[in-house]
């Protein structure tokens, strides 16, 4: 059972930080995600929007990875899925923009605007917020993965070039 594995990982001191951190992360993670989704969905009504909400969601994934280690973090959102979501988010955004050509203009808000201050209002803007939210979540988490987990590869490169430099000095 995958659940058992994850449960084991949660209590295993080999992965991630101490149980204090893990408990706190488990306590706040749900709130972080709900808040991120709220910021995205209410982007057209209150301050916030796709970018701000996406950053909050990405921070949720980052906190998971920091607390529980990279295995669990990558299991929740792997680098490959992140890269596909990243690309798909942009494409959806662009397609909504292009769909405006049906009304004659690029980025025309062609959908019904609805009633002001209602959740289902403002035409295409909530859809665009969702697309941007997905993109920002995926790309910021991908940057985090690249800098932290895959970053070891880069620092190994740096070490080898330093060795080269030492070697050339000796020559």
């Amino acid at each position, binding site marked *: 059972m995958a659940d058992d594995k994850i449960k084991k990982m949660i209590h295993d001191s080999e992965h991630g930080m101490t149980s204090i951190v893990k408990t706190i992360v488990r306590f706040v993670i749900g709130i972080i995600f709900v808040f991120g989704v709220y910021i995205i969905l209410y982007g057209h009504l209150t301050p916030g929007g796709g970018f701000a909400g996406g950053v909050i969601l990405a921070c949720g994934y980052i906190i998971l990875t920091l607390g529980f280690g990279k295995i669990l973090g990558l299991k929740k959102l792997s680098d490959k899925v992140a890269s596909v979501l990243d690309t798909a988010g942009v494409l959806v955004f662009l397609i909504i923009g*292009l769909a405006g050509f049906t*009304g004659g*203009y*690029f*980025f025309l*808000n062609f959908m019904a605007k609805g009633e002001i201050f209602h959740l289902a209002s403002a035409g295409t803007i909530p859809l665009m917020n969702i697309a941007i939210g997905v993109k920002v979540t995926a790309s910021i988490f991908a940057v985090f993965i690249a800098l932290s987990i895959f970053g070891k590869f880069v620092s190994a490169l740096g070490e080898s070039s330093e060795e080269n430099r030492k070697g050339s000095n000796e020559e």
Partner: protein
Amino acid sequence: MQGYYPLFTAIPLGMAFFNLLAAKINQKISDFLAFLAMASLSVMAVKMLFEAPFAYHVGGWAPPFGILLISDGLSSMLLVIINVIGLLAMIYSTKYMDSYTAKEKYYTLFLLMIAGMNGVVITGDLFNLYVFLEIASIASYALVGFGCEKNELEASFKYLILGGVASTLILFGIAFLYSLTGTLNMPDVAIELGKIGMNKGVGFVMALFIAGFGLKASSVPFHAWLPDAHPSAPAPISAMLSGVLIKALGVYSIARLMFHIFGPSALVSSIIMFLGALSMVVGVFLAVGQHDFKRMLAYHSISQMGYVTLGIGLGLNPNVSPALAALALFGGLFHMVNHAVFKSCLFLCSGAFEYRTGTRDKLKMGGLVRKMPVTSATCSIASLSISGVPPFNGFWSKLIIIFAFLKAGYTIYGVLAIFVAFMTMISFIRLQMNVLFGELPKRFEKIKEAPFLMTLPLVVLAILCLAIGIAYPFIDSVMLEAAKDTLLDQAAFLSFIAGV
């Protein structure tokens, strides 16, 4: 065409990301998709030359509230340069980039750079200009470091830091301008500035813009990043950076803002002319001693862009006679087109030589005309063109600039321009002696001509060098005259806000 004007940014942007997804399924298709995007953009860009000026309201919002896209002679000219050179560089890349990994990511960055440059050129909104400028710049930072070797990463980092400083200065300038006028729409800003007149705030904004866009255009006091960044990039990217990027982001933006928003002024004109003359002279002196083929070309880019800024600078001067100002401006714009053609040809040639010989050091090459005749012939034509030998295109534009300066009484600048043309010629004669002629080193006995997909863009560019020189009246009537008239006619620019 009019209704589809935003496609100039939408096509490359969409294809950049679609390419990444498609390459996950089939690696081979990314070559084709990228080519398709660039080919359609070039066709559209050439078509735009024959359109009357118009304004496009994004999302149907009337200016000054919505984003305004502007199509006039100047932007059409830049669109042609960007997309045609981009198409040729893209064809060249399909073969050249085989020696690198992650080709589809290269195409993504390339197309993002194109999207950013097209955006800068078509937009009529200051903040929009900044956003597209950043898209193009950030893509180019990544492309400079694409080889991931030590030198390339160092050059990329240097470029990133200085480019970041430039972007910050530009953003500051835009913020100040917004606080002064309360609008970001370019024609609207110009109208508001006309009411305010000149004050310290406006002067400060001008200084910020000259420094910021000067860094992007790498005029001399701001040039430190270019000689590192341009040689480190893969050859097609060097061609794009030197041939197109510094023009679209730097010189175009300076010209558009200074002519259309701030209006001609003697002070700005003298500053820009001084920067131009300084880049011209310093660039060529630094170039003469270089052994690295691409580094030498990069220094020559600084020097040749000096001619362009010099011409545009005199065009801004309200005190000389309008005919001479127009002539100098025309020379500057003409040289901009010519420089795009011959400099990208030279960079692609250097890439072809490097592809076969594995070195960029001029002194280690020699006698390559016997082994790589097509590449050598195109390299020769482009060298003659940049040195200003008639009947190639570089001759005419330099002649016009020099003539305008001597006639307008700026004898020192005129003489300096002649001197720099002479130094450029010396430098390129040495290049030809070292690379094309002389003795063929033993280890190059077995090399072959570069592959067809790499020589094809070279031949096209070399033919363009000759064709623009000979069929100059045609090019003049199709794009240069319109671009010049656009810049000199501020009233027409202001009328865009009313909608066409």
